[in-house]
Each structure stands twice: as C-alpha cells, then as structure tokens.
C-alpha cells in the first residue's frame, strides 16, 4: 500500500497546490484605537494529490477553516499562490472563477445552517445545476432525485425541507448538492463533527464510494485524529496558522516529528488505549 501511495505522490502532479498562503484579520474595538490582529494563515504550503483523501487536522483556531475558504476561493488570501490543475488561480478574474467554481465544492460542518431551510431537498440539489445551466425544467428535478438516491436518500423525500431530516441525512443532502456539478475537488470542512459514531461511519462509507465512482479528490478537515486515521491517505497538521507537518498516514501515525503532532496523537492514544484495555480479554 505504501509503495503505491508514495509512487502516486512522486509521479502524478498535485491537483491542488498552495504556496506561501497567508491571511490576517484585523479587528478594532469601537471607542479605542486598539487593533487586534489575527494571523489566520502564515506561509502555508499544501499539496493535494489527485484521487486521494488528504486530511487537514488541527485544533480549533489553527486556521483550518480559513485555509479551506481560501482554497475554495470564498476568500482571497493576503499573500501566496494557489494552483489548481496546473494553473494559478489566486489572481483569477471573476469570469475565470465562474468557470472554476463547479470544479471545487465545499461541504460545511453545520448542515442546518448551510442549507436553505425554505427550500425543499430537490430544490437545494437542483440549485447549482440551475445556476450553472447544466439542466433545466423537468430534467432538473429528475437529476436531483437521481443524486438523492446516489447519496442514500430516498427520492420520495425530495419534497421535504432540511429540518425534517436527521443530522446525518442532512449531510448526505449537502454532499448531493456538492457533487451535482461533478467537481474534481471536494473540501469537507468538519463535515463529520458532531455526528454519532454510526452516522459518521455511514457518511464516510458513502464518501469513499463516491470517491471511487467519480474519481473525486477530498480534503477532509477535522480535529478528530481517530477519524482521520481510518481513511486518510496523507495528513497535514496545522498549528497556529502554519502547516507543521505533512506526510502519509503511516508516517504521521507511527513516526510523528513535530511536537504538536505528538501532542495530538497522545490524546488519541490515551483514549484508544483505555478502550482497548477495557475490551481486553476478547469479545464475541
């Protein structure tokens, strides 16, 4: 397995490449001259290999979401370059962006907030198709139903509104919307946080199936190392706006180099080992 992974990394060019990205936020309190400067991203370098699942892990406040937003072109970084499919996109014009957006899609953590509560499921999925004029009329609805079935939701529920779905089902809906335009790159920003273990497993399996079927490339952002350890090909660790370590899953988990990575792994280790101890003696 490792040989295949490193070989892939060596020969195929990266689908997405961030070079020296930086972004800061400035905030000012109303009656004073005091300014708070937050360095969200500091000289970030990241590569995502095609058809892989790259995980971006870090604590809250480490800058993962900011990086995601910059890669999804929802925000402009202050400095650095972003390359997609071999082309530099950080200076893209609005025209170019319009062509580029269908290829890069994002699934957010808060599905209830990311989906319009007034729309039906079919309308939510059909929206990008409609805006990009991929389909029209009755074809819109039938394509939306197809996508619903593909993510494991019954097409009978096409008329329901997001709040009538459970958390896991809503995430499936968000995923259906994200793959509607057949993107090449899907960013999952903490999309699995806050879900039950069994729902998480089901949604992850769905994502793996979709990846095989559509040759998708994933950037999975999470603070949960145990989760990432189950599915990632390569892992990038973020801490205070910087990428402190980046390697294959095997490397990171068995041979972490940076102190922060070791710290993150330790807490996972503790929880897992007490669980294993409790289970010791065999089951079934």
């Amino acid at each position, binding site marked *: 397995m490792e040989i295949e992974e490193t070989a892939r990394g060596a020969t195929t060019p990266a689908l997405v490449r961030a070079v020296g990205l930086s972004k800061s936020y400035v905030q000012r309190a109303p009656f004073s001259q005091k300014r708070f400067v937050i360095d969200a991203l500091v000289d970030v370098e990241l590569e995502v290999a095609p058809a892989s699942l790259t995980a971006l892990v870090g604590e809250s406040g480490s800058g993962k979401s900011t990086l995601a937003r910059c890669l999804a072109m929802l925000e402009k970084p202050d400095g650095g370059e972003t390359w997609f499919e071999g082309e530099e996109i950080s200076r893209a014009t609005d025209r170019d962006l319009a062509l580029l957006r269908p290829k890069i899609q994002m699934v957010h953590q808060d599905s209830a907030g990311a989906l319009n509560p007034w729309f039906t499921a079919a309308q939510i999925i059909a929206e990008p198709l409609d805006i990009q004029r991929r389909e029209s009329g009755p074809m819109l609805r039938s394509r939306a139903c197809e996508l619903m079935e593909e993510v494991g939701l019954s097409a009978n529920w096409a008329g329901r509104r997001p709040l009538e779905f459970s958390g896991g089902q809503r995430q499936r809906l968000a995923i259906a919307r994200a793959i509607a335009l057949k993107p090449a790159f899907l960013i999952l920003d903490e999309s699995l946080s806050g879900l039950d273990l069994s729902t998480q497993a089901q949604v992850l399996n769905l994502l793996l199936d979709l990846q095989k079927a559509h040759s998708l490339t994933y950037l999975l952002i999470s603070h949960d190392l145990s989760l990432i*350890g*189950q599915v990632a090909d390569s892992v990038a660790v973020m801490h205070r706006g910087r990428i402190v370590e980046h390697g294959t899953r095997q490397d990171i988990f068995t041979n972490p180099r940076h102190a922060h990575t070791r710290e993150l792994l330790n807490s996972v280790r503790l929880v897992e080992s007490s669980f294993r101890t*409790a289970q010791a003696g065999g*089951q079934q």
Partner: protein
Amino acid sequence: MTHAQSAPASAMLSVHGLTVQYSGAGETSHPALLKVDFEIKRGEIVGILGESGSGKSTLALSILGLLPKSTGIAGTIRFKDKDLLLLNESGWRGIRGARIAMVFQEPGLALSPVMRVGDQIAEVLRAHRPGEGKQRRQQVVASLEDVGLVQVERIYKAYPHQLSGGELHRVAIAQALACRPDIVIADEPTRSVDGTRQAEILDLLRETNRKFGCALIFVTHDPALLAGFADRVILMYAGRIVEEGPVSQVFRRPLHPYTKGLLKLVPTALQSPGRPRGQRLPALPGSLSDSDHLSPGCIFASRCFARTDVCQSEPPGEVVPEQGRRVSCFNYGN
C-alpha cells in the same frame, strides 16, 4: 479509583417506569422514553451511552424537570426520598443547581454573553444561599480555583467571548459545582471538542468526582470516552434501556447486539494505521425508522444480526444474566 468504591452504596437517585411523551405540533407520536428504570448511587460515575434519538438528552432534562410543561411524564424519579415529579416549580428550583446540576454541551452558549462570568457563578450561589452576600465573591474565586483555573482575577471579570474554549469549559463545570451538588449531569460535554481538550475535561470531571464525591451522569454517544472513566454504563436505544453493567464487563463482553455493533465502530487508528486505503468502515446497517416504533416486537430487530422470529412478534423483557448486569434481548450473548 472513583469515589464510589470507597463509600457505602446507597441509591441516591432512583428512576422507575419513566415514560416521556412530547406533545405539540411537529412532535412524533412515539414516546421519547419508555419505562426507563435505573439507579444512581452516591459518588458513582455512570455513563449513558446512546445515539441521537436514543432519549439520553430527554432523560437528562427530565431529571432536572426541564421538559416543556405540556410533556406527558409518567413514572417516578426518587431523589433522597422525594419524588421529584411531584414537585412544583419552586420545589424544582431548590433542586436545580443546588442538589442536581448540569453541565451543558457548549459552554459558550450556556453562559449569558452580556454578564461577567464571575457574576454568573455568583448568581447560582445567590439563588441557593441568599444570605451569604459578602462571602460570595470568595466562594466564586474558590470554585474557579477548584477547576484548575489560574488567572482567577482576569477570568472573574471576563465576559464569555473573551475566554478561550478550554477556560469556558472549566467555568461551566465550576458553575455546576458551585453549590456542591450531589449529582452532576454532563450532557455530551466533549462533543465537537478537540482531542487534547477532551482529555482535560474528562480529567477534570474525574478529579471533581474524587474530591467532592458528587455522582456523575455522563451522557455521550462515544463508548471510548467511558473506558477508564465511568463505573457503570447504561445503553439506550430509541428511548429504552437495552443493556446495563459495569463498564469493563460490558466492553469486554457485550451482550446486546446493538452494544456489540456500537463498540465495533470505535476507531482504532493507532492500532492499524496501515489499513488498506478505500476500505469501507464497519457500520450499523440502516437506521431507526417509524416502522420500528410501530412493530410489536423488539425495536432493534430490523437492524439486528442476531434476529430470530420471536424478536419480531414480542418485545424482549429484561434479563439479569449475572449480578450487576441486565439486558433486554432474546438472543443476548450470541
């Protein structure tokens, strides 16, 4: 070891036949809790393990009388010889925060954004000990120190948005402990929390159980958190208790098929980092649906790998296979 093992056992909280049915538009017709029985002894740490929809949050809210007024509640909740369900609102106020306290999931949301954090803890003290005005500030400072906070002056005067996530969690726990309650209910306190802070919160809760002897009811969906932490675990599914027992025994030898399935879901990334890529994860098939609620048999039957004919025609009764354990299944252990 937890406080429970050094003190004499006596049931402090005992719940019998608790059935809760929400009413009102948009609510389902099946009960959120069905005939729930269990006991909590002084100083114990009990984990309530279940997924969304299992009724665990409803259980937590019903112990504190925080369900909407229109909810149908049957059964008894005895706390130190008092039936809590017979209390009126002012009776409840004497219990909440003073004898039974709750730590909410997101402390940032559980605190008022426009009041200083120290004042909010003082409010809890004031509600239960109206006379001791002058010492209140010292008590608040003491409770903040109890949870391991160091820059107490700064934190006392701060508003929630000025504190970090870790500090907020500790403040929420300090607030719950302020009146030294007998039972603390922690409702998924580590959901969506980073790994390092998760460990800190668990350590803190364990510490307070040891130091103050308060019983802890820890509600969660993640079995891994209860290992090495809780004394007993109660598994809930669709508003029913399906299994109960000491944590080490249940995890070593789960009896109910749901428990077995749930335990298999716990990630073991560190043990098998070389897992072949793209391999699917183990998952429980299907999900709880309305037809399950309508079926005359076991509610878990449609998802159960050990299902037999009797499971679909009759609901399983409770079985006590050994001391301290119980399970609701016809085919337990298979």
